[in-house]
């Protein structure tokens, strides 16, 4: 497959992932609304919101870094997408994954957050600074158990390539990491709750308390970019977990069902549990998931 076809297929994949992300957000918001016995938003509300944000007639700037913040964040989401194999066995939707893609994915996952922190900092709003300090401290503790789980996986499968990890899990549920290495899976899935940042770990954005955290000053198309990126990021992070622990996907319907269920888990927990304070959530991540991660490492060695 030549480069141009590859790029075109990657763009097609991005388009599908973006729309599925927006639809998934709407479905999840609808589900939470039904739990509260409300009717909830229309299923096409996220698209309308995007059109509205991009079509606002003016936007102001607080400086160059403020403008670059959403771009870096977008780079985090799209960068994660570019190196992520989506469909196992399909050359077209393997994107640009290569032998060491797991390492670069771990790096890019954090990169978007840092860019956003710089941009939000230049916004100058005190709530942005609060959101950034909370977000970075929580994400740092979330990354610890996740990184340990990934190291356990790398030792178990003796590779740093996502494609090979997915290949090793083919041939039935019994081969999934979920069953071959349940403790690492548990550590990673619990840290996933912090990645998606839904209740009880949504203090970073904390609606109703500090106005929406880091993006407080972002508006119009800046916010449009952030929202587009959020839709991509939610799906692609679910795809990462799917590839690592739940056997990957051999076709688009399987990918959609699996990402939906993975994302639904965090929503399910969020509906049941109220919000943690930041010191509580940091302590919790440093206790249960981290302990599980260390046990997973010890067992695999």
């Amino acid at each position: 497959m030549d480069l141009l076809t590859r790029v075109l297929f990657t763009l097609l994949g991005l388009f599908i992932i973006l729309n599925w992300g927006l639809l998934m957000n709407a479905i999840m918001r609808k589900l939470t609304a039904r739990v509260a016995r409300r009717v909830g938003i229309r299923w096409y509300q996220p698209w309308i919101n995007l059109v509205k944000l991009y079509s606002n007639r003016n936007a102001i700037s607080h400086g160059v870094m403020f403008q670059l913040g959403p771009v870096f964040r977008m780079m985090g989401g799209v960068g994660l997408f570019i190196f992520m194999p989506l469909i196992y066995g399909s050359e077209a939707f393997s994107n640009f994954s290569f032998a060491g893609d797991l390492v670069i994915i771990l790096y890019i996952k954090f990169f978007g957050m840092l860019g956003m922190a710089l941009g939000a900092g230049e916004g100058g709003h005190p709530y942005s600074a609060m959101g950034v300090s909370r977000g970075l401290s929580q994400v740092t503790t979330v990354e610890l158990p996740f990184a340990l789980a990934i190291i356990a996986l790398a030792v178990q499968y003796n590779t740093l390539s996502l494609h090979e990890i997915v290949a090793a899990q083919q041939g039935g549920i019994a081969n999934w990491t979920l069953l071959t290495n349940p403790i690492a899976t548990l550590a990673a899935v619990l840290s996933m709750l912090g990645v998606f940042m839904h209740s009880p770990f949504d203090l970073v954005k904390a609606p109703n308390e500090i106005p929406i955290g880091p993006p407080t000053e972002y508006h119009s198309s800046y916010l449009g970019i952030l929202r587009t990126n959020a839709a991509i990021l939610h799906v692609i992070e679910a795809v990462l977990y799917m590839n690592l622990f739940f056997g990957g996907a051999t076709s688009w319907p399987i990918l959609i069902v699996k990402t939906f269920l993975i994302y639904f888990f965090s929503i399910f927990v969020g509906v049941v549990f109220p919000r943690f304070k930041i010191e509580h959530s940091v302590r919790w991540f440093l206790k249960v998931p981290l302990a599980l991660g260390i046990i997973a490492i010890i067992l695999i060695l």
Partner: protein
Amino acid sequence: MAENKKNIQKNDEEKIQETRDKFLKDHNKKRRVETPEGRVIEVDPMKDYFSDERPTRKDPHKGVIEKFLNWARSESIWVLGFGTGCGSIEIPPLTTPRFDMFRFGVAMRPTPRQSSALIISGYLSVKTLKRAIRSYEQMMQPKFVLALGSCTINGGMYWDSYNTINRVDHYMPVDVYVAGCMPRPEALLAGFNQLKKRIREGRAEGANQYAEHFDWYKANQKKIIKDWNMPDYNW
């Protein structure tokens, strides 16, 4: 009418300059400071920290494009969480299962930067007017104002109060009035639907109106707010 406007402005400008220095906080006054390197420089925080650029008219697109965009704007109304008077107690019930404004595409936003609609919910005291103006000016165009309750129309039961303004549309362009004291949440939802209709018809150009008649609005505001200690225009 035009001359009248100019006269109001001329007489008031001198007064405003006097009052401005009087009410400005010390850290916002124009002064000379010494830098760590020993140079003496002049700082004017009202110019340095705030933009005093006037708002400008932003022309809508033409034809089908603007119709589509207006439809999107009308179906995604983000309301600034800003309660002015007793009417603000009527807004929270809208998020509950009984009224549920989300099904109409209405949502609350905590910051003026991201909001497209401002609800003046009830009487507006002089002190709150200042905050309402700052919030309104920080919102992005196009922006809509929904005035709730009799107090915003003619002062209502506060019509002769010493510190409550009577007509909101002397200070900012209002798109929809919801009458009542207090209007129930259903009335507010009806107001939202009226606002949607207005946006779809392309008549909700309040921000452009504010930019075109900026001097008139400012003169009115400054007549009421005696301790004007903020920049003339708040980005």
